[in-house]
């Protein structure tokens, strides 16, 4: 029986493979929203109102777009980092922890370095975030290269460890003593990323992230180290034969990768929260994996996939308020969209 079903999808889908790319992608995404509509109807809400709210919230106003972009920002930065690591076949799933590490380091510099001019203070704050992220990435990279330790485990375990460290810091050393709650004091104003679009939260970090994406595109395709990252990932042995110091390259790649994730945390702290709070990343580090892969590890395409994800998250969130769609249904829609988008993008080519 099962075999029949599989054979059936085989037959059905072979025509589909001849379709132009854009058309089938569109159909697949439509299908995802149709499936979502069934759930929305099931809870007695209106799919049209819900999807209208989704689009309006994501792109319908200056503020909506700004919110989409500030959400895209950490996804983009961490996604860029993940793209680099995955190109070198280093399966970093520690971006979440690296985001937290970056956030903590940025917060410390933003809180305690007094008397700096704004530009210098912001630069140092972001730099601190990058160093924090990179530090966390360094050990899994070193263990992998020197001892052959599986990086998926080490990076995943470090996520849990770091999140507890952040919790500890917020209960103890970094806690705002004046406040009754477990948050750090506000960063000094000189460490705040400036707002770019008046009356929104659109901060400079967004532009920085987009600029970095272009830079990294150039870096991957036009520089020696970029070439070596790609070569080491695609064929380690051949890279070695060509005289590339593969281990050296992997360590640098992971440092860059985790520094970018750390930067995502720093930007979130100094651009949005202006202080360190627990849970300031609701799983950006995991979503960024999907963002990077849906962008096919191409920096410029990662810009678009991060915006797509941010729009989806923002818009879906707005469906709660505009159309009373409960959160479980929103998760179902998000999940279906992610799975089906993966299908539409990768069906022709092998991924990775």
């Amino acid at each position, binding site marked *: 029986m099962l075999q029949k079903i599989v054979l059936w999808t085989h037959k059905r889908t072979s025509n589909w493979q001849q379709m132009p790319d854009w058309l089938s992608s569109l159909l697949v995404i439509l299908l995802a929203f149709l499936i979502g509509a069934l759930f929305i109807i099931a809870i007695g809400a209106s799919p049209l109102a819900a999807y209208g709210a989704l689009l309006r*919230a994501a792109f319908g106003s200056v503020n909506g777009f700004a*919110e989409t972009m500030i*959400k895209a920002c950490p996804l983009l930065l961490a996604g860029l980092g993940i793209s680099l690591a995955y190109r070198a076949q280093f399966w970093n799933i520690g971006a979440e922890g690296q985001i937290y590490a970056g956030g903590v380091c940025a917060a410390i510099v933003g809180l305690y370095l007094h008397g700096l001019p704004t530009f210098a203070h912001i630069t140092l704050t972001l730099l601190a975030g990058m160093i924090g992220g990179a530090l966390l990435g360094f050990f899994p990279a070193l263990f992998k290269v020197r001892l052959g330790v599986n990086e998926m485990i080490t990076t995943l375990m470090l996520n849990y460890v770091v999140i*507890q460290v952040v*919790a500890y810091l917020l*209960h*103890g050393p970094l*806690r705002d*003593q004046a*406040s*009754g*709650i*477990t*948050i750090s004091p506000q960063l000094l104003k000189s460490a705040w990323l400036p707002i770019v679009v008046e009356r929104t*939260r659109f901060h400079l970090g967004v532009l920085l992230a987009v600029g970095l994406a272009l830079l990294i595109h150039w870096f991957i395709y036009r520089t020696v180290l970029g070439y070596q990252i790609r070569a080491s990932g695609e064929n380690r042995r051949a890279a070695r034969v060509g005289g590339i110091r593969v281990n050296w390259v992997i360590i640098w790649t992971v440092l860059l990768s985790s520094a970018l994730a750390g930067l995502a945390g720093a930007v*979130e702290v100094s651009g*949005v*929260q*202006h*202080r360190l*709070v*627990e*849970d*300031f*990343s*609701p799983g950006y580090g995991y979503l960024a994996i999907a963002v990077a892969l849906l962008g096919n590890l191409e920096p410029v395409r990662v810009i678009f996939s991060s915006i797509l994800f941010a729009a989806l998250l*923002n818009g879906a*969130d*707005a469906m*709660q*308020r*505009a159309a*009373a769609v*409960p*959160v479980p249904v929103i998760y179902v829609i998000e999940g279906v969209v992610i799975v089906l988008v993966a299908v539409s993008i990768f069906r022709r080519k092998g991924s990775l």
Partner: protein
Amino acid sequence: APATPTPAAETKKVRVALVLDGKIDDNGWNQAAYEGLKEAEAQHGVEIAYSEEIPIPDYEKALRDYASQGYDLIIAHSSIAKEAVMNTAKDYPKIAFLWTDGDETRENLAVIRPMAQEASYLAGLLAGKITKSNIVGMVGGIDIPSTHRSYAAFEMGLKEANPEAKLLVNWVGSFLDVAAGKEAALSQIEAGADVIFGNGDGQNIGVLQAAGEKNVLAIGAVRDQFNVAPNVVLTSVEWGFRKGIAEVVGDYVAGKFSGKVYEIGLAHGADLSPYHENASKIPEDVQNLIKEKRQQIIDGKLSIPDISSAQ
């Protein structure tokens, strides 16, 4: 004061929105607020809306979204969303805001401060009197101000009632992880605890369940949790969000809203739950002691300090 938001005209229904960082069915913190909202709807005929699982980075967006949709009263039910609440309240001076367990008010921003320390102190007395092994356990969710306040007052009551008693403390690092709550409680029971105070949310279900299975007396929290393990749950330290939120909404509807601190103490529903079928397990004199102390607190003769910061 003129800047105080005025309730809408009689003909129009008052619209109240609630923003939660967790789910409405989390068995604790968020569910209590949701139930408060429902109660307000039932009692005061307001129109309600809510958003669940709003992570901290999106909190402000959600608040602003409701504000721009013209909601009259917007409730932020998260102590750490400080920036979000303060910024939005500042930008929408005509709209009333309520921040539960917050630490700062504005003219249009009221704060609910649950005085859980009072009931927790009474619970501590109860535990101290009733323990036979002189070992009492406390399993907390996350060590945040509200749970810490409860923990500190519980310990105070315990030590007062029974200076010999030892308090075992476990924090499970989650308000949702039932499994972790259960494991922590089991480990305390193994260590000899014969009364367990579950101080938190969803994870409390696991705590009380463990007590139920091992037949060890237990005290719940946040809401009346008797049903989780009717054989052992003596009472629960209710936080009173449910009543508190309904009360603030009622004030708003009655035009009495102001940016003040609502201290929700014993008289406002932040109380010990009834003993239900387990009253017989509590000796008469202990029941009387608690009754007495409770009255003293209500009358202002006894004040329980709010120790809400973790060391």
